[in-house]
Every structure is written in structure tokens, then in C-alpha cells.
């Protein structure tokens, strides 16, 4: 499955862009995406945290992506 990934904050700097489309090689779970991303962009492992959101809600690592889901990378937030 192909998935569209949107980045904010430092995640944009890491993927050098606002968006990327990724072929999921090892399954459709968030943990699979996390692994794949970290192997392509080792910078992600250096962050304090990396969370994921689908359709504007946080999702757990066990979440299984469905076709059409918009996956958003949430590096450590720092509002306020």
C-alpha cells in the first residue's frame, strides 16, 4: 500500500519537504511505518518523541492504516 505522509516542525526539515508518499513494505501498522521511516531518515531516532496522527487524531503504534488515510508526523510539540 502507498501512503501519503504529511510533516510538521522538525519532521519537515528531516524529510526535506512538507509531504512524501511511501510504499509500505513491512505491513500497514504505525510501528511498521515508524521502522521504515527511521531506516530511511535516521534523524527521526534522535528526536525526543515521534507520534503519529491519522485524520487529525493521535493513533497508537498498533493502528492499521487504511487506504486513503492521511498520516501526519508529530514530532515533539512545543506550543504555548
Amino acid at each position: 500500500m502507498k501512503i501519503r505522509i504529511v510533516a510538521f516542525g522538525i519532521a519537515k526539515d528531516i524529510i526535506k519537504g512538507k509531504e512524501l508518499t511511501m510504499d509500505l513494505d513491512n505491513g500497514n501498522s504505525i510501528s511498521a511505518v515508524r521502522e521504515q521511516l527511521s531506516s530511511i531518515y535516521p534523524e527521526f531516532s534522535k528526536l525526543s518523541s515521534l507520534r503519529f496522527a491519522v485524520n487529525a487524531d493521535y493513533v497508537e503504534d498498533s493502528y492499521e492504516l487504511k487506504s486513503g488515510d492521511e498520516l501526519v508526523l508529530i514530532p515533539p510539540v512545543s506550543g504555548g
Partner: protein
Amino acid sequence: MQDIYITVDKLNSKACTEAVTYPGAGGIVVFVGTVRDQTKGKAVKHLEFEAYEPMALKEMQKIADHATDKWSLHKMVIHHRTGLVEIQEEAVVIACSSAHRKEAFEACQYAIDTLKETVPIWKKEVFEDGEVWVSAHP
């Protein structure tokens, strides 16, 4: 005025305070987060805030709803600014009112603490010689 609001324009803590005022209020507590001129002794030129806006609004609304319910507030207003924010300008305003002041204090503190943990907004400190995404690294 909208209760939960993200804007590139200047915030107005006075309007937020007025928005939560009501005839039964025993206490109004307002938190204003302003931009600091330095971080760990290093001079900051200004900040740049970026938000994943639909989700940020949703998470801010969750905070206001939970706080209103848990501390029996009359109302909570949360405004956050994005884009370039100058030193000393307001980056966030949280105002809430309740029949009892203790509840308003607790709710307001919960709201800013939680906002800093869950709301997808990112802050970049811009220095003379570079820039840093705040809290990105351990």
C-alpha cells in the same frame, strides 16, 4: 469571539478575559504566555509558530471541554498565535471562570500544561546565528 482560536494576528488577552466574565463568576484566571528574549542565556530574535491547525483546534477543544467538565467552569477560552511572534508579544492566552477561584486556578494550569504536551503546535527559536525547533531533541 471564538472560544478556541488559532490566528496569525496579535492576541487580545483583554477580550479573552471579558469573554469568560459572567454575573456568577467568583474568580477569573488568565494565563498569558509571552515570548522570552532568551533561552539558556542565548538571545532570541523572535519565534515562529507552526500548527497542524485542524488537529490543534480539536486538541484545544478537548482541553477546554475536559477542564470545563472537571472543574465546573463557566467557560474556558484558548487562543494561540502562529507565524512570526516578536519578543514580549502574547503567544497563547488561556482564560477561564468559575464560581470558585480554586477551580479556576487548577483548570487554567491544567490547560496550559496539557496544551504543551498534546496540541500539535511547534515553536522555532530564531537566533542571530541559526534556528532551533524547541524540545525536538532530548
